[in-house]
């Protein structure tokens, strides 16, 4: 056996390194963390600017062209601010909660296809993983509010969990609508199915509406900003966070917005799809920007619900509607 083990080893190592470097770049830079952070800041700007224009205001104006760097400036300013840990707080949880809150949406975003119809990490059942991550985010929120031992924080975190009980089941139900249609629990396959057939928003408009409402609740946007209702409980579960921790929480919130809009885009709008000469990434960006604008429009035209009204409303109307959507799909409509 005249195999040159040293040469094989060298070859393997060489290939491994280049592959490792490529995947490292993909994880850390594009379309991984750095790209997602940039996207998070960009969508915060889109949200703020669009929301302001709906209210006949300018929104961010002076930092960068049309204030596009304002979210980044806010982030950097918060990083430099004093970080206060309340004396009575559960220090470990209090310090870890913002990190988790940032890491969870970031990790989850890797299963969503961005560059091309197949995501960076794709496996059968990643849709369930995304829904699970949404639950984990709320549990982090609960821990963040609870560990700060503040009256407003406690009330806010309790409200967050109560709210989750309301929207999680309808959201889970309708999210399986696209999965049934594409006959797969993988988001990449759902995207692929849509590029061969129709966009699912055309087939399941009811599911799209319910999913958007549930995402509003998940993102704690008006009318469901109950856990951080400013005029009622100051900043809710975020009351005691300051400085670096608050910066992480804000970035985490922005990433959650990216995740929500990316989910809308991939489940209902066809995700990153090649149109003629337009590359998939552009299609993805256009669709997610549309989703962000839709969410900001909705948060502009409502008053805040009370927690009991919100819960009973979701259980009374949204859950039956979500069930109806699934029945419709099973009956052969919209699948």
């Amino acid at each position: 056996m005249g195999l040159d083990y040293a040469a094989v080893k060298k070859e393997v190592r060489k290939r491994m390194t280049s592959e490792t470097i490529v995947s490292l770049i993909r994880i850390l830079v594009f379309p991984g963390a750095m790209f997602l952070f940039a996207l998070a800041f960009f969508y915060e700007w889109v949200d703020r600017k669009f929301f302001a224009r709906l209210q006949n205001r300018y929104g961010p104006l002076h930092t960068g062209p049309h204030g596009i760097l304002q979210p980044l400036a806010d982030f950097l300013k918060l990083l430099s601010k004093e970080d206060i840990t309340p004396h009575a707080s559960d220090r470990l949880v209090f310090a870890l909660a913002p990190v988790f809150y940032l890491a969870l949406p970031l990790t989850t975003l890797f299963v969503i296809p961005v560059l091309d119809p197949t995501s960076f990490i794709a496996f059968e059942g990643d849709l369930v993983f995304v829904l699970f991550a949404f639950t984990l985010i709320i549990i982090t929120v609960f821990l963040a509010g609870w560990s700060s031992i503040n009256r407003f924080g406690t009330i806010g975190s309790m409200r967050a969990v109560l709210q989750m009980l309301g929207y999680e089941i309808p959201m889970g139900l309708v999210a399986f609508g696209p999965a049934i249609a594409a006959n797969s629990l993988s988001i990449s396959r759902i995207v692929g199915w849509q590029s061969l057939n129709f966009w699912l928003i055309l087939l399941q408009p009811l599911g799209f509406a319910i999913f958007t409402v549930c995402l509003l609740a998940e993102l704690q946007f008006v009318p469901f900003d109950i856990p951080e209702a400013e005029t009622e409980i100051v900043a809710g579960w975020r009351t005691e966070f300051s400085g670096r921790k608050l910066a992480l929480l804000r970035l985490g919130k922005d990433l959650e917005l990216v995740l929500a809009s990316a989910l809308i885009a991939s489940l209902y709008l066809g995700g990153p799809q090649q149109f003629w000469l337009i590359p998939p990434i552009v299609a993805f960006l256009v669709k997610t920007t549309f989703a962000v604008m839709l969410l900001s429009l909705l948060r502009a035209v409502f008053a805040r619900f009370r927690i009991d009204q919100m819960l009973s409303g979701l259980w009374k109307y949204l859950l039956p509607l979500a069930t109806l959507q699934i029945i419709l799909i099973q009956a052969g409509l919209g699948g």
Partner: protein
Amino acid sequence: MSHGSIIKVPFGPQHPALKEPENFLFEVDGEIVVDVKPRLGYNHRGIEKAFELRTYIQNIYLAERICGICSDAHTTCYTQAIEELLNVELPPRARYIRVIIAELERIHSHALWVGIAAHEIGFDTLFMYVWRDRETVLDLFEMISGNRIHYAMNTIGGVRRDIHAAMVPKIIKGLDFLEERLKYYLRIVQTEQTILKRTVGVGILKPKDAVNLCAVGPTLRASGIKNDVRSDDPYAAYDEIPFNVITHSGCDILSRTLVRCEEMLESIKIIRYALDSMPEGIIRVQVPKKVPQGEVVSRVEAPRGELIHYAKSNGTTKPERYKVRSPTLANIPALCKMLLGGYVADIPIVLAGIDPCFACMDRMAFVDIKQNKKWVWTMQQLRRKYAKE
């Protein structure tokens, strides 16, 4: 959602729902308010004492600064009191100008309230729109009086500035714009489901309680009781102007909103009528500096309700004693009644529902419950007390 334990939740003195410092301690069982203890006095500025140290002319501007929003109501009340002491008859044109300014102020104060109420229930877009359109009134004020908030229009014996013929078309134009917008907002308030969800049946104040707890102004009128100083005890030119007293019988926040929205529309009608039928003539009469000895109580319907000023003069150029009873103070017991049994989430909107103006309200008086004694510190006593410490 009750979990058996009662949490004490402080509201204020610093809280996003309260624009001014005041403290309310709520006892909360889950999301239900079971007890509320108001603690007033954070905004005490010693204004009544300051009245005694200034001349009658200077006090006009001091009275104006009791409150930034209803500044005209306070000066009207003050000048009315002093005019009664002096036994001065106002020129007819001045009385009409006072009505116009008072009603413009009512529009701007109520519009401000609608915006704040929208903000309290998380409806920031409506808040932005209402406040944007409220600027129209402020611009009119700037044109008429030279300032947006502190108009300084009233003086003892009349008003300081005339409303010229050139201003009238501009005012009419502004009113037309406002009328259209206000009707639109009235429709929004009545049709937007999320607003109705948060306002119907919230902060109930039954008519009987409203009377017993001495509620005033729109808070009282929203409980279906017709009570308005403008029609009950007319001052300025209100006896010559036809207008309706708006009441609603819903007893809740929605009724308070509707009362205020419709009062704004009524105010527009009053201003139009007053501009039409304003008599020509002088706008002020000269008055002596010294005010004869006497006591007087003057009442005005401020945007927030009945405002009472009391003055006692001793024949010099400065009042001997001055007392202000602002509508917010009269509404505090009714407010506590409204809050009991409500949700934590409803606290801000119920608090805002009486249109509180704590700067108006906070005065100083000492009450010793054990000895059943009430007294007021004089300046000398205060100096002596704090010199020791």
